[in-house]
């Protein structure tokens, strides 16, 4: 488990969401997450990758294993795009808020599933969303 725990994948359209899910599933498994947490993580990235496609067109996902005392401790995943940005982040994080006729569950849902989420965004420049999930202490 000391091998290279990071990687990246380009998102050029909706058909790439499947590869994003596949890559993330393998990464999360190799870090040591159980089946339910793997499902949570893969579902969260599926939402965030679809947002990149819908609102920015293209972008990139990067992931890396997080260590604690040189042991696997979690996963960090970042989505970066150069789309329009999110004008009001508080509003976008609200359950049910959508500008595309979606369900508006992606951002708040991804935060719940992962535990940690940070959004950096600038109008006209793009959006970078970082999510993190830690292996349970037990």
């Amino acid at each position, binding site marked *: 488990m000391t091998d290279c725990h990071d990687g990246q994948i380009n998102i050029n359209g*909706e*058909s790439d*969401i*499947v590869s994003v*899910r*596949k890559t993330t*599933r393998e990464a999360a498994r190799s870090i040591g997450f159980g*089946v*339910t947490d*793997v*499902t*949570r993580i*893969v*579902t969260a990235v*599926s*939402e965030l990758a*679809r947002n990149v496609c819908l609102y920015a067109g293209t972008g990139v996902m990067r992931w890396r294993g997080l260590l604690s005392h040189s042991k696997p401790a979690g996963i960090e995943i970042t989505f970066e795009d150069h789309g329009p940005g999110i004008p009001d982040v508080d509003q976008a994080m609200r*359950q049910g808020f959508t500008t595309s006729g*979606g*369900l508006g*569950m*992606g951002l*708040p*849902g991804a935060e*719940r*599933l992962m535990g940690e989420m940070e959004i950096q965004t600038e109008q006209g420049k793009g959006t970078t969303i970082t999510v993190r999930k830690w292996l349970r202490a037990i």
Partner: protein
Amino acid sequence: MSADSISVIRVHDVLLITVPPDPDDETIAVLQEKVLLAMQRFEAKGLVLDISTVETVDSYFARTIAETSSMVALMGGNTVIAGMQASVAITVTQLGLTLGNTRTALDVDRALGMLQTAGLRRIQ
């Protein structure tokens, strides 16, 4: 997994569709259309969507399932979702999603049973 690989099986007057493990958005959209057209052609009264191999249900997938089931209802049919994995059920609920009023069953056998019983009840 491509859209061509989706098979539609008839069990009496019920259609059984096995959803592939990791369908892309295109496949899910095609599946919806395929199901609706098959319902009409075979004059089916019910639809079982077997999702027992599906490992990820995100908001797009959940919305399409709920939508398909209300379309089937408009045509006068019943939909049962069969075999959702525990980890998927946990995730879908935490994500805040519902499947609308779609009924659920532990497996395909029970799903078919539910549609049979419903049918019998209606005939009596």
